[in-house]
């Protein structure tokens, strides 16, 4: 197997896989509130790529619901300062849509043959890896998101495109090419396409 062309050292690790299927991963962040933003391209281990489609912070123990604690506090920070155990009782989870994988040096914008194992580390991809994945503005991955029907899936798609565009020298060009690809997928549903396009800084 050829070595990945992207230097992995620059990838920032933020958590690990706690639930895994071919299509979807659940990741837990190592730090409370340490989740990457909506639409961020994430790599699980060495080969599986996913995008952030949801972030939630919940109680570690589902049987112990969280109660409000700030009635007497002057600020939110004071609440956490007075209750240091909170950091241990809460966790931030990231739901991820798998949109591709890597075979050797080649990027595939379709589902991997197997999901990553539990506890596989999750990394936020650096700009060059993002460029590599979205090279040429190929929107093949978009069909996975469009068909998956996650809640507010179109918002996720728009967020992915926005995040990815930031890695390119001319974000507008990337957005236009990618949007045109999305337009082909959404041929016949201009209203939906319009909703996505309106969430993009096209022409900006």
């Amino acid at each position: 197997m050829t070595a990945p062309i992207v230097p992995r050292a620059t990838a920032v690790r933020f958590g690990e896989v706690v639930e895994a299927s071919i299509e979807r991963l659940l990741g837990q962040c190592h730090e409370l509130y340490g989740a990457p933003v909506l639409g961020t391209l994430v790599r699980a281990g060495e080969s599986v790529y996913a995008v952030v489609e949801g972030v939630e912070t919940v109680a570690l123990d589902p049987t112990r619901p969280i109660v409000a604690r700030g009635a007497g506090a002057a600020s939110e920070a004071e609440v956490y300062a007075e209750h240091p155990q909170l950091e241990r009782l809460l966790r931030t989870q990231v739901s991820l849509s798998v949109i591709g994988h890597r075979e050797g040096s080649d990027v595939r914008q379709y589902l991997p043959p197997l999901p990553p194992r539990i506890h596989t580390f999750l990394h936020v991809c650096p700009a060059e890896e993002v460029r590599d994945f979205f090279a040429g503005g190929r929107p093949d991955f978009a069909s996975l998101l469009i068909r998956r029907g996650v809640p507010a899936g179109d918002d996720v798609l728009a967020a992915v495109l926005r995040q990815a565009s930031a890695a390119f020298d001319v974000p507008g060009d990337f957005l236009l090419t990618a949007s045109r690809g999305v337009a082909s997928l959404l041929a016949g549903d201009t209203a939906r396409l319009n909703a996505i396009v309106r969430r993009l800084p096209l022409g900006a």
Partner: protein
Amino acid sequence: MVVDAASPLGMVVGGSLSRGLDVRLGSAEAVEQAKVGTFVTIQGAGSRYFGIITDLRLDSADQHLASAMADADAALASVLSGTSAYSLATVSLNLTTGVGGEAPQPAKSLPGHFSAVHRASNDDVQAIFGSEDAWHIYIGSPLDMEDTRVCLDLRKFVERSNGVFGKSGTGKSFLTRILLAGILQRGVATNLVFDMHSEYGWQTQTESGYAAKGLKQLFPSRVAVFTMDPASARRRGVQTDFDVQIGYDEIEPEDIAILAQTLKITDLGVQACYTLRSRFGASWILDFLKQPSDELSENIGGSSSTLDALRQRLGQLQRLDFMRDHGQGAVKRVLDHLADGRHVVLEFGRYGDDLTAYLLVANLITRRIHEEYRRRTEQALAADGKGPDPLVITIEEAHRFLGPGVAGQTIFGTIAREMRKYHVTLLVVDQRPSGIDDEVLSQVGTRITCQLDNDRDVDAVLGGASGARELKSVLSRLEPRQQALMFGHALPMPVVIRTRDYGEALYAEMSVPGAGAASKTASGRDKRDLFG
């Protein structure tokens, strides 16, 4: 930016052989470059196809595009254009060649889905229309392909009667001149031109102001200019060869029949002409004009009022200065020239605006030619020999000779219908093809048509042509000048051309002797033309 030959205009996405292929255009540049009339090639799996774009339309994958776009902005427009909102071209398929590079055949199969569509290249055009040689002349270039030459096979061209159509000012007469000069130089036929507006024999001023040479100037020793109006010819400095005079005794009732509409002669009047002819013989007109009507009506029947009216109408012939009591052999002179392989341009001078004179003279001379060629062909058949060299008669305002009412009676109708067998064909130049009898028009082999305004004219020109519906959209979008749609017998497929310039380049080409069969007899004259 120009889409280069290597990058396709688009790809085949549907359609049929009868209604044309749907071609989805690729880039925004391709959309703007694909024009109605553009000549394209389609590379199938094994064969190569040739066609022209006959229609363009905008289509969308979304039926509700219009409503969905109501509040859309430029961003959405840029995303949609070329993706789910796209342009389709209808390509009418005409020809195909196999892998072996054999001669193009009419297309009977289709290229598969997603076959790439390219603009035709120089080589494609040559493969179809041939390149300049002994029989092919360069007549123009396909749309947006200025360096490419579309050639016309003159040998096939003169096999049938042909038509050059277009409203006035579209370049009909320059096109006709190019054809005539080509026929002359390649020696494929002998020309007789009824030059209504005195523009083919000697030079005329073009609308842009430069002088365009006439046939006599290009081929001094092979073209004879006959004139009906010597005074006009002298004023214009034309070297004429013969002043034509017509004798009353050369006029037949058929010649009057063709004038019926112009001179407002009734059917009864025309019938009376036949009666008069049989009674008085050759000098019937003069004899009739001298005799009082009441006496005559007793002798030959018919009302005296009919005869009075006829006399008054026929009296109008007397104002034509070229009329004489007896013929001076002008018609024979024309025939002798033609028999000798010399080309004749008959100028009408001021009579060009006088329809009576034009119709009378053209019909009268052509009738004699008809008889002569018929006789010679029949003689040749009897002797198992070669018939006379082909003759091309050019007539302008052809609808006057070939209208539905008169085509049955005039000699031009007969020629259009059957004279191919006798080696005489017509080159019909007209701006109102709808005025030409359908049956005659259906005999017109090759049609070259410039812009036409009137829908009826468009329909008439396309009548009976295969793919008429598609060609109509092409024809209706021709530019007003120097563009023509050519289709029919001498052309493997319809093509829109920008007519070549009639100027120095053409003069230079015409000064070289052609390689045609008929020109062999005239090669000595060619040398004289060249070297004095």
